[in-house]
């Protein structure tokens, strides 16, 4: 009996020391991780919003009544940030689009002007196949095509539109395109950006 007790105690001791050590490290790293995530998001916001206007910009998260959430199927919500210049003129909006790609949910931050035209975008997160879908992170390969387009023009050439998908990565390309389009549609339905004449 004493033997079992001793070995059990030993194992428990090992586990307790491990848990305490990890708790300590976690208490140091978790604020850093949170801050760095926040910073990365802020950097992306500033970067993308730069396509709306230069100079000082103000960000304000917008609560919109009647805003549908197109991203429920991937357990995310559509949040909208309004961008104003220092004089208080509304320039446009930022939102993050979530699209289920090949092996991950691709997150794309999008800037749209008050007329409903995409002015800039950047991929925040993706875990797609290296060499194929992961190229979505390279703006020159795919996302550059979004600039200047309205919701109705966001269609891959395979689906009858004009956008060339990434070589060998239709699923990723379609996921990003549709997620951005769904976000824009939700914004126009809620009356934030104008509904396109007769197209919708």
């Amino acid at each position, binding site marked *: 009996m004493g033997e079992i007790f001793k070995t059990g105690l030993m194992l428990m001791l090992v586990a307790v020391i491990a848990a305490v050590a990890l708790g300590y490290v976690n208490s140091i790293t978790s604020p850093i991780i949170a801050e760095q995530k926040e910073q990365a998001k802020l950097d992306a916001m500033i970067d993308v919003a730069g396509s709306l206007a230069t100079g000082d910009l103000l960000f304000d998260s917008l609560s919109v009544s009647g805003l549908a959430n197109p991203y429920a199927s991937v357990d995310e919500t559509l949040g909208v940030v309004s961008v104003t210049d220092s004089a208080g003129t509304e320039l446009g909006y930022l939102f993050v689009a979530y699209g289920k790609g090949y092996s991950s949910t691709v997150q794309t931050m999008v800037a749209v002007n008050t007329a409903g035209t995409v002015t800039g975008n950047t991929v925040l997160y993706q875990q797609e196949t290296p060499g194929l879908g992961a190229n979505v992170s390279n703006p020159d390969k795919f996302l550059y095509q979004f600039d200047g387009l309205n919701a109705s023009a966001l269609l891959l050439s395979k689906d009858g539109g004009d956008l060339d998908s990434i070589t060998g990565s239709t699923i990723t390309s*379609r996921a990003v395109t549709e997620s951005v389009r769904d976000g824009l549609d939700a914004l126009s339905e809620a009356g934030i950006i104008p509904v396109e004449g007769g197209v919708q």
Partner: protein
Amino acid sequence: MMNAMLMSLVIAAPDGGEPSFSIAKMMAIIVSAIFINNYVLSRFLGICPFLGVSKQLDSAVGMGAAVVFVMVLATLGSWLVFHHILVPHGMEYLRTITFIIIIASLVQLVEMILQKFSPALYDALGIFLPLITTNCAILGVAVLNIDDKFSLGYSLVNSVAAGIGFTLALVLMAGLRERMETANVPEALRGLPLAFLIAGAMSIAFLGFAGLGG
């Protein structure tokens, strides 16, 4: 009794995710785990048993069955512990350490129970069980279920499908390797290199399933 317990747990998903269980999403998870993102051939999980236990068809089937069995139990245990113990106490960082302990104890437990109550099943699966603790597909499926924010119901579906995908890869590999035994292969490529070549060819075939997801 087990079924009734599971049902009530599925309905009471604590993370406020989708409460309903959609058949479409379930099918998508199954097709993805077995074919598109096959755990062995596309995600590279469980390579060691894939190479080690694929020389004969019989043992491949046995290993596959043992993996499916432990995977489901491990998913059940790890999901419940993560969402009902770790998350409420803000201790998500203990995930890796808790999951591996759960898996190691489960394997031990299953081994003891089988030995005592079902010697026939123990004879069939017993030798594979110790190998399973270090099969990264088991820990992999437990972690991916959390990363993908699956509810318990979807997690269990995903783990069964992942296990089937693993078994499929293993059985196909064993069938091919048994045939290759008699083939005239360049000496330098005999053994492990040939196994990798076969795996590569199978992996190319599985790339073809990518279109299914669209």
